[in-house]
């Protein structure tokens, strides 16, 4: 694949006329392969990264990875972004991956380096983000002796990574590296961990290229079964109240999947909603767009899900934030479920037509089938008028104030002032994340990076670094909460060092707003430890890091302040002081059904005893 176009590295020499171009050269390469493609484990790692097309990696050095760092020292073409905490490296790699469709790569040391990576690994697993994590390990002969900075990395990450390896022989290293990229990026993507003992990094072994990296047991299916597509089409043709329920699988499938989706929606005229992870696959300005589904989703989307007769789930997984009360979930619909992961089928919701396939391939097959078969267009007029009735309820409406910045208003203005630009949004976790999903509108896939499955506070800032590293000229904004931002605040320093001009837009309500909202709703307004006293002076903090700080508290100044943020050439920390006790609506209270959404103003008895034990 990419192998041949790279210039040679390290110990072996290529003919003086450079990268091979023809058969003769190939033969010579083979000879070299037998005799001289011998290098140290550390060099194998770096060479494999380059042969896999890696351009950027995120990492933090330590004793157990020093040989690899040494190899990086002489490989300036591999950009290494030095973070301030390993968790930052992991989320940065996730942001990089999500915004490019390429795998994210990180490199950390043994022990604490590896344990600090656990959160991003689990995060990437939940959101199906392709990632390869290289961890150093103590020398082989010390494994199991509680050596300095030893931990059982493969044991710790076994259940939160898609796969992991402990490399025991330097001659396995190249194969393992290439396998890891294959596993991370194919099937349902996910994080793969490679734990490399220090002696293996020093040892000399044989390098083999990525071609022919086939796996003995791992062969994920991606082509849809013809019969299942036919069965799905049959249901779609008969539908009178259909809805497309789309998710992150479409984003993972690549841009073409979104193109096909838009075509399929146009041809069928079915309404479409999406999970948090799937935003942007279908444009928010599209006329069939219902808005996001789920706990804080659009009123019309949730009602359409509840009342539909055919649900076409494309690359989503019936997550509990989406389904609400399971036994009341879309009770009268036939369900089609397209998923690349067979274990997602019938996991929580029983479906009628499973399609095990890559979302993009399945969408294309559905589109072709739909176009081929002559049939009268479904009469959806009644369904659309019902949907328009729900739309008229204006579920996202809020009261604007003259003297306070409402958080929703802040997002609205941010959207208006950035929509013409090449903008990427990341978020932290909390109310601000939901407001961002509701009020910032996405026209394209890969523009929206958020921690959905794991809900990791601290994700957004480092993820923004990863996005910015991949798209140096883009406008990258982390929509943050004042609590979340402090979880990986240290990465501001990385942004300054690497000239990554990210903008951190904090909706500062002084509360862990989402926690406060639940305490108001569930725990009799007993606000136990959800208020952050002694918040830092964010403007001063920005300056301390060498970035730019802006504070705004008056709606009248907001546009100018946002413009200042956009125009500033460098990292900005924007402290947007918003209404402190605003709640995020609409909301499906836990344990409730989609058609029991509340639109505003909590009374206190929305959640019954059974609902209270849910999260």
């Amino acid at each position, binding site marked *: 694949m990419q192998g041949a176009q790279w210039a040679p590295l390290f110990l072996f020499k290529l003919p003086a006329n450079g990268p091979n171009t023809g058969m003769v050269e190939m033969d010579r390469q083979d000879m070299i392969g037998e005799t001289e493609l011998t290098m140290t484990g550390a060099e194998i790692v770096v060479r494999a990264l380059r042969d896999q097309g890696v351009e950027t990696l995120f990492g933090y050095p330590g004793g157990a990875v020093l040989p690899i760092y040494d190899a990086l020292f002489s490989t300036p073409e591999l950009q290494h972004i030095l973070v301030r905490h390993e968790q930052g490296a992991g989320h940065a790699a996730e942001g990089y991956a999500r915004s490019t469709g390429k795998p994210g790569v990180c490199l950390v040391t043994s022990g604490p380096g590896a344990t600090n990576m656990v959160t991003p690994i689990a995060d990437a697993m939940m959101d199906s983000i392709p990632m390869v994590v290289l961890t150093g390990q103590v020398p082989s002969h010390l494994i199991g002796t509680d050596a300095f900075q030893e931990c059982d990395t493969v044991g710790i990450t076994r*259940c939160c990574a898609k796969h992991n390896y402990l490399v025991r022989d330097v001659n396995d290293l190249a194969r393992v590296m290439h396998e890891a990229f294959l596993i991370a990026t194919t099937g349902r993507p996910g994080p793969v961990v490679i734990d490399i003992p220090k002696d293996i990094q020093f040892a000399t072994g044989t390098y083999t290229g990525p071609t022919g990296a086939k796996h003995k*047991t791992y062969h994920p299916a991606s082509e849809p079964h013809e019969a*299942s597509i036919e069965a799905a089409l049959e249901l779609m043709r008969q539908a009178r109240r259909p809805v497309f329920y789309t998710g992150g699988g479409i984003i993972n499938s690549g841009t073409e999947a979104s193109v096909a989706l838009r075509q399929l929606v146009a041809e069928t005229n079915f309404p479409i909603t999406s999970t948090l992870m799937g935003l942007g696959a279908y444009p928010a300005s599209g006329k069939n767009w219902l808005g996001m589904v789920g706990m804080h989703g659009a009123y019309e989307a949730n009602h359409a899900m509840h009342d539909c007769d055919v649900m076409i789930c494309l690359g989503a997984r019936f997550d509990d934030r989406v389904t609400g009360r399971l036994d009341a979930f879309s009770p009268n619909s036939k369900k089609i479920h397209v998923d690349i992961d067979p*274990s997602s089928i019938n996991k929580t919701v029983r479906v009628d*037509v*499973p399609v095990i396939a890559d979302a993009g391939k399945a969408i294309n097959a559905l589109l072709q089938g739909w176009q081929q078969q002559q049939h009268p267009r479904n009469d959806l007029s009644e369904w659309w008028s019902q949907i328009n009735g729900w739309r008229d309820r204006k579920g996202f409406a809020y009261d604007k104030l003259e003297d306070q910045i409402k958080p929703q208003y802040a997002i609205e203005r941010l959207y208006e002032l950035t929509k013409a630009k090449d903008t990427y949004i990341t978020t932290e976790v909390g109310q601000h994340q939901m407001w961002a999903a509701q009020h910032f509108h996405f026209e394209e896939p890969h523009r929206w990076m958020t921690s959905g499955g794991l809900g990791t506070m601290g994700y957004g800032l480092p993820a923004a670094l990863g996005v910015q590293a991949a798209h140096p000229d883009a406008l990258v904004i982390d929509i943050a909460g004042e609590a979340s931002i402090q979880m990986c605040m240290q990465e501001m320093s990385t942004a300054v060092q690497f000239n990554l001009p990210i903008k951190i837009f904090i909706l500062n309500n002084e509360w862990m707003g989402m926690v406060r909202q639940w305490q108001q709703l569930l725990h009799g307004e007993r606000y136990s430890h959800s208020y952050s006293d002694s918040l830092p002076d964010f403007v001063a903090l920005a300056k301390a890091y060498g970035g730019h700080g802006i504070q705004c508290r008056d709606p009248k100044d907001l546009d100018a302040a946002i413009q200042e943020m956009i125009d500033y050439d460098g990292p900005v920390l924007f402290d947007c002081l918003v209404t402190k006790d605003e709640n995020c609506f609409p909301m499906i209270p836990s344990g409730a059904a989609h058609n029991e959404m509340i639109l505003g103003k909590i009374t206190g008895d929305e959640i019954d005893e059974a609902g209270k034990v849910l999260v």
Partner: protein
Amino acid sequence: MSNTTSTPSPQSAYFIDDHSADMIVRRTLAAIVDNEPGVLARVVGLFSARGYNIESLTVAEVDRKAHQSRITIVTTGTVQIIAQIKAQLERLVPVARVIDITTSPAGLERELALIKVKAETGSDERVEAMRLSEIFRARVLDVTLESFIFEVTGGSSKIDQFIELMEPLGLVQVSRTGVLSIQRGLPE
């Protein structure tokens, strides 16, 4: 062993609801895995992480050259859970395939047990234990003046029954291998 309608393979176009969704069934699953370090931990970890039952588990390398091991697991759950277990197992990278031995017409299961019984010389119990062991085709592995050790093989229910019969005679100790599985005919 309970017999319910087989779960459709996830690739089949129609999911047939068999309305026995809440019935708990026992299933024997065989996983053919790449015998790499940690593969057993992955399988066992999956069961504990997702709250599935393991009633018995056997594992050994069965193909030296191909480095393949066979893990036979006896588990219980609703038909939906069993389908999940199968899918989750198949999702593990080193798992080549998973076979539902219970629902496969070609499935064969055997278990081996070592059973120690207290039986004094000259007692009626000693005679009865010996007589029953012949009926069950158990082998006597060890004899002392006051005890026997029997080796018995067969389906799990046969072994359960033998143990039950030994109980009143003076059952002292049981050691069982757990279920082994294979399929009749060629190829598997």
